[in-house]
Every structure is written in structure tokens, then in C-alpha cells.
């Protein structure tokens, strides 16, 4: 036995053994039952999982989201690190949401890809991830001032509507207009409101109309402006987040007049947790209790001290969540609270968002793919069945067509599969490649193509044998001649796979990964490994007849 042969034999044994050892984690992880999983410690299970093949979302079920940060309207320096902030906030939220092995990655300059395997409630996750969660503590303008605001809006609206000919006509006959008609002519907005104390409420059906009317006005001219900055409104109008009904069949929403500048924002919140009974009117409904920073607590104490008897609104993403009246000065160190008609889940999610912080800018979901766990399971079962049947047919064919040499080729094929699994599970890239359904198809395709290398070699050897060469020479020349052909053929397929890897997304990438790993592995198993076997058989054991 030559020394080169000894080395090659050793290399093949080593590689295959290493692959088998690496792949064994995967086989163990997927063969343990749920009961056994429960008995294992969490760490042991996690470490096993991290060393085994990762399944793509299409196979294990889950959600793939692509979010786009809307940087429009952000000041330049904020826009610059908006992505980093958004990534951080989203990671925080997902961490607290509790999903195993989530993946959060930046794509391009303004997109974030979030992958949540094994997710149960997609809608909830989407809300939790995509919501800005900007919390503001804002003073509600006192009633007399809010009256002034509404009157100004009414007046401006009369002008606009008159021009558009939308006001009820002035009485043509001598009959005076009815009281409501008169009111609609003079105060088109207020005419639609009902009042709860001093708070104007509109019917839910009218909300859209109100928004449309407000949009027609140049509010910077209508609303009272700041003393130091003429033309910049001092107040803003915001809807409440909750419907109110008074048992008469109509449902209303309050429209608040708020100070334009918040007293403070969610950044003054250090911690948030869910507590029941924060709202005395709803003792069983959960609310979110907020722990403020030291600075925030001081500001809060000062404001409440100065404005006893006035209202303070908790505004979340532009909607007034609750606006309790300030009973007395709230000393620093006490807690603020957000209440509303929350379910347990909503309160929990709100607390998560407030703890994790607000997103720097609104996020838009531009791509979403969700696969239910049942479909994933079906796909695995079907994919593996297809693989087994296909593999078996190829195996039978190889054994019948190439006899003993076919056994060697089939062994090489098995080693090839082992290598693919080991590489996918053990490649030091983050995140490690996932096996997707197209990926599974890629492996099946590799089975077909990996055989090709051996077919080429075997056909060559047969040809050389027909030319009356000795077994040794036939093997040597067969391998040598076939080698260039195999290289040329594989390189072109690899080019296609590499392009897919570079430009493909999601499922396509999964396919490119297994295809290229499969081809690379087949170069080793089908060429190097089988040659070692043939050499051993013919040189070491001096076999004189080749069964091929």
C-alpha cells in the first residue's frame, strides 16, 4: 500500500466519521419523543437543538415577516440610527414575547426580516412587533378653552362648506329654519356632538366624516397658535380609543382637545407591568402600571401638583387611552397607570411594548408568510416519503446495473447525505442554514445527480475494460478521464446554485444551499471515497475480477 493511499484512506474514514458524529445530534434530536423532551433539562435540549439541523419555517410552521421602516419625516440624525433602534426594540419585544429561536436580521437599508418559528398567534405577534407604541402624557385643555377651539373650527368649516355649497340652504320661504337646521348652518361640527360633562362625543359612524372635515381645514390657522411661534398650533385634537354607549343604542367616541406638547413620553417609563383594578370603575379589568424614572417622577409630581382638578391624558400612538382627572399631587416615586377595556393579552402586550420602548418610526409589513404547523408536518412527511421512495429506486437500479460497484456507489450516496446533514447543522455561519421544503427537493435532486458522477466513472471503467485493459489500469484511467468531465459538469451547476444563493430569498435560498452542499459533498464521496474503496479492493486484497 502506497503512502498516498494510506493518507487518502485515513482522510475518507476521518471525514465520514466526523460527519456521522455531527449528524448524530440531528438524528437524536428528531427521534426523541415529546415525553423524553420534557424530562430533559432545558439546557441539554437547547444545546442538542443548536447542534442539529434547523428546519425552515415552511417545515416547522411559523411566521416570516419583512418590515419596512418609514423614515419619512424623521430628522436626519434620527433617520441615520433609526434602523439600529428599530432592530433593538423589535429584538427586545420578541425576547419578552417568548418564541424559541427567533431570527431578526437587517436587510438593505430600511428593512428588517423577522422569523418566528412555531408561532401560534400571528395577528398578535404582528401587532406586537409592528406597533410604534409611542406613549405620551398630555394635559387635556380645560373646558372653556376647548370650547373656543371648537367654535373656531365651526367657523372655519362654515366658510369651507358654504363655498362648496354643502350647508343646508337658507330658508327660501318665510318659514324660519328648525333649531337643528339652524345649528347645522352655524356650527356644523358641534351640531353632531353630544356632550358628556364637557367632553364632546361623536357617533362612531360620524368619526370618518369628522376626520374628513378636519382634513379640509388648514388647522395651523384655525387652532390657537403658540405665543412664541405664530402659525404653530398649541393644541391638537385626538380621538379616544374606546367606544362609549349610554344604553340608547348609539355608540360614541370622545374627541379630546390636548396640549400639543406632551408633558413627558414613554422614555420616562422604566418598567411596566400588568395589574388588575387600576381603574376603580372596572375592578376586574387589567391595566398597565408604570414605574417612572426619577426625572419622570419629578416632572409628573410637579405637573399634577399644579393642575389638580384638570384632566391628564395617556396617549398611545395618537389615541387617548384614558384621561383621568388629577385628584391631587402625585408624589415622585408613585406609579402612573394606563387603563382601558383591555383583555389580559392586550394588557400584557402593551406592558411588553412599553418596557421595550417605542419604535423610532412607523413600520410597514411589506411581506408576510405564515405556515401553519399542520401543513409543515405534512410537508415533512411527504418530503421524506418522496426521498425514501426515490432513494430506494435509485439504490435498486444501481445494484442491478452495476452490481458490486453499485454497492460502493450507494455507500457513497449515503455518505453524501450524511455530509449534507452534518454541514447544514455544523457550518459556522449565523444563522445556520435551514432545511426548507425546496431544500429537501434539492437533496433529493442531489441524490439523482450525485449518482451521475459514479455513472460517468463506471461507464468509463467499463469502456476501458472492453479495451482489454487490466483492472488496475481501467480503474486508474476511468477515474482520470471521468474527473474532468465531472468537474466541468458540476461547476456549471454550482454557478447556477451560487447565483441563487446570492440573489434568492427564503425558499429559493434553502434550495440553493442543499444543492451546492450536495454537489460539493458528492465530489468527495463519489470521486475520492469510492476510489479508495476500489483501490483497497484491487490492491490490498488483490481482487482480480471487477463486478461492475
Amino acid at each position, binding site marked *: 500500500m502506497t503512502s498516498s493511499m494510506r493518507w487518502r484512506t485515513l482522510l475518507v474514514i476521518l471525514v465520514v466519521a466526523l460527519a456521522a458524529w455531527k449528524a448524530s445530534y440531528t438524528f437524536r434530536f428528531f427521534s426523541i419523543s415529546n415525553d423524553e423532551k420534557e424530562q430533559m433539562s432545558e439546557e441539554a435540549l437547547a444545546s442538542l437543538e443548536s447542534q442539529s439541523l434547523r428546519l425552515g419555517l415552511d417545515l416547522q410552521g411559523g411566521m416570516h415577516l419583512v418590515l419596512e421602516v418609514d423614515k419619512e419625516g424623521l430628522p436626519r440624525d434620527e433617520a441615520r440610527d433609526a434602523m439600529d433602534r428599530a432592530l433593538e426594540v423589535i429584538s427586545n419585544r420578541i425576547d419578552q414575547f417568548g418564541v424559541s429561536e427567533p431570527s431578526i436580521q437587517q436587510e438593505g437599508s430600511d428593512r428588517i426580516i423577522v422569523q418566528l418559528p412555531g408561532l401560534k398567534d400571528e395577528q398578535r405577534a404582528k401587532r406586537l412587533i409592528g406597533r410604534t407604541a409611542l406613549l405620551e402624557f398630555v394635559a387635556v385643555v380645560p373646558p372653556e378653552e376647548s370650547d373656543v377651539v371648537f367654535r373656531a373650527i365651526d367657523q372655519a368649516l362654515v366658510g369651507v362648506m358654504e363655498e362648496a355649497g354643502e350647508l343646508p340652504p337658507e330658508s327660501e320661504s318665510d318659514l324660519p329654519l328648525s333649531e337643528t337646521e339652524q345649528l347645522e348652518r352655524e356650527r356644523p361640527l358641534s351640531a353632531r356632538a353630544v356632550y358628556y360633562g364637557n367632553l364632546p362625543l361623536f357617533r362612531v359612524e360620524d368619526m370618518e366624516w369628522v376626520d374628513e372635515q378636519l382634513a379640509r381645514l388648514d388647522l395651523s390657522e384655525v387652532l390657537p397658535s403658540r405665543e412664541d411661534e405664530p402659525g404653530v398650533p398649541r393644541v391638537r385634537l385626538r380621538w379616544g380609543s374606546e367606544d362609549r354607549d349610554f344604553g340608547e343604542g348609539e355608540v360614541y367616541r370622545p374627541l379630546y382637545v390636548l396640549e400639543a406638547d406632551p408633558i413627558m413620553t414613554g422614555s420616562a417609563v422604566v418598567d411596566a407591568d400588568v395589574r388588575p383594578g387600576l381603574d376603580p370603575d372596572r375592578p376586574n379589568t387589567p391595566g398597565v402600571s408604570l414605574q417612572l424614572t426619577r426625572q419622570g417622577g419629578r416632572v409628573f409630581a410637579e405637573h399634577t401638583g399644579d393642575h389638580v382638578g384638570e384632566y391628564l391624558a395617556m396617549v398611545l400612538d395618537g389615541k387617548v387611552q384614558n384621561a383621568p382627572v388629577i385628584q391631587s399631587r402625585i408624589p415622585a416615586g408613585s406609579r402612573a397607570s394606563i387603563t382601558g377595556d383591555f383583555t389580559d393579552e392586550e394588557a400584557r402586550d402593551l406592558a411588553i411594548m412599553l418596557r421595550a420602548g417605542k419604535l423610532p418610526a412607523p413600520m410597514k409589513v411589506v411581506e*408576510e408568510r405564515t405556515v401553519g404547523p*399542520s401543513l409543515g408536518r405534512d410537508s415533512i412527511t411527504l418530503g421524506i416519503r418522496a426521498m425514501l421512495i426515490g432513494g430506494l429506486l435509485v439504490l435498486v437500479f444501481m445494484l442491478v446495473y452495476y452490481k458490486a460497484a453499485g454497492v460502493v456507489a450507494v455507500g457513497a450516496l449515503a455518505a453524501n447525505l450524511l455530509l449534507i446533514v452534518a454541514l447544514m447543522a455544523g457550518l459556522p455561519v449565523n444563522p445556520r442554514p435551514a432545511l426548507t421544503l425546496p431544500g429537501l427537493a434539492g437533496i433529493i435532486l442531489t*441524490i439523482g445527480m450525485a*449518482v451521475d458522477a459514479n455513472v460517468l466513472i463506471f461507464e468509463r471503467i467499463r469502456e476501458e475494460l472492453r479495451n482489454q485493459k487490466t483492472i488496475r489500469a481501467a480503474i486508474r484511467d476511468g477515474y482520470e478521464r471521468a474527473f474532468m468531465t465531472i468537474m466541468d459538469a458540476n461547476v456549471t451547476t454550482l*454557478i447556477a446554485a451560487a447565483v441563487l444563493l446570492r440573489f434568492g430569498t427564503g425558499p429559493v435560498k434553502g434550495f440553493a444551499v442543499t444543492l451546492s452542499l450536495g454537489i460539493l459533498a458528492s465530489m468527495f464521496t463519489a470521486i475520492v471515497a469510492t476510489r479508495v474503496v476500489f483501490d483497497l479492493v484491487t490492491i490490498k486484497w488483490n481482487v482480480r475480477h471487477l463486478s461492475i
Partner: protein
Amino acid sequence: MEFLVGTRFNFLGHRRAAFILSAVLIIAGAISLIVQGGPRLGIDFEGGTLVQVRFEKPIDVQEIRDSLADIGMADAEIQRFGENREAIIRAQQREEGEDLTGVILEALNEANPDNRADVRRQEQVGPTVGRELRAKATNAILIALVLILAYISIRFEFKFAVGAVAALVHDVAITLGLFSMTGREISLPVVAAFLTIVGYSLNDTIVIYDRIRENRRKLYGKSFTDIVNTSLNESLSRTVVTSLTTLVVVLCIFLFGGEVIKDFSFALLVGVVVGTYSSLYVASPLVVEWQVHGEARKRRRHRK
């Protein structure tokens, strides 16, 4: 066991007939594409929402259509998916941020309270992303073609590269035509399948080219046509064996791999068959045409 060894098929003798067959197939596909106004693109490339639902009991597509028409979604596309209680619904969001899946599910369950639906898969692609994915896929195919063309030009002669690329354009064109004729959709995985066809078809072609290159040295003095014909025959058993094993596994994915990858495996299936045919009847014969015409021109020039 051996077969197709020592054959003397006259592949090149039939090349004109083969060219006509290929032309017919490509033209038929092209007509179908023109009639339908281009290939049917999936939501990956068009943007939109796809919801796959499964009912407890078998359901008629018409019933699903009626339930959706009730909520003003009469234009949603509904397709049976595999067994008769599963369907795919394709629709466009009516306003940004609409939870279309929720709306659809609610409408279905309201209309058929005793046959509840359950969402198996949901995909939603925004119009910008769709456009981007389309550009990416086109780029990927073009870049792959150029790189492959370059590689073969380096390893062989330019006319071989042209023959190989012509063969794989031929393969993709026929597959695309068949997709159009059978009303299948082009999605991201299908594009991946197209690229695989490209790789596979080349693989086959190159093995034969390799033989031609070798035989040109070995059979010096014989006509180029004879050399190519001999090479085709010598590599025939390998071509057939490899095609058969690949075909067998691809057929297994197509038959047993499930509905989700049916279009993908259909593309591979067609690609393997057409790819094998084109290596024998398109790639090498084109090189022969080029060579023969080139020699004829050279002779004419000599006579002058």
C-alpha cells in the same frame, strides 16, 4: 447488465427533424403565452395575498366563491388544492394594513358554520416587494446565463458555449410554454427550478462536449459530423442512465412530495426530459451546423 453500448444511432441525421419539433414546441408555448398576455405570475412577483384554507368536510369551490362574494370579494381567485376540502384563495388587499386573512376566514366560517375552515398557510407580498423580487429573479437568471456562457467559452470553444446556451434557453422556453398551457403559476420556487433545469441541461451537454473534445484528438482526420455522432453514441448509455435516475427521483417528488411543491417539481420533471433531449438533439447538432457552414464558407472563399 448493460444497455445502449456500441450503438450507432445517427443523431445528426435527424437533426433537421429535431429542430422542427423543438420549433413547434416553442412556438406553441409562445402562442399560449401571447394569448394569455404573458406568464401567470404568482403573488411573489405580482404582490397580493394568498390564503390556503382547509375545511372540516369537502366543500365546493362555488360555495367558497359565494361566501366571499357576500363580503364584496367576488373577484378573489379560488383554486382547489389537492384534496377536496382544501383551497387556495388569492386576493388583493383593499386597503393598506387590512388583515385579509382574518376577513376571509370570518366570512367563510360565517357562511358555512357547520364546516369550519382553518388557515394552513398565508402569504402576503406588497407590490414593491413583488416588483423587486421580479427584478431579482430576472437578474439571477441573466447573471447565471452569462457566467455559464463565460465558463464554457473558457473550457471549450465559443461555438460550443453558444450551442449549450441555446439548448438551455430552449429548455426553459419549452418549460415556460408548458407552464402557460397547463395554467401553472410562476412563483419563486419555480424560478429556482428553472435555474436547476439550466444547471442540469448544461451538465448533460457538457459531458457530451467533453467526449467530442476528446474524440477530436483521438479520431483525427474524420469529419466533424462523424466525430460528434460517435461522441453522442459513446456517451449515450451514461446520458440515459443519469437521466433515468434523476427522472425517477424527480418523479417521486412530483408524485409524493405534496401539493406545496407540485409546480416546482413539475418544472423539474419537464426540465429533465427536455434537458436530456436538447443535449442530444439541440446543443451538439447546433455546433455541427455552425462548423459545417463555417467549413463550407471557407471552401467557397478558397475557390475564389
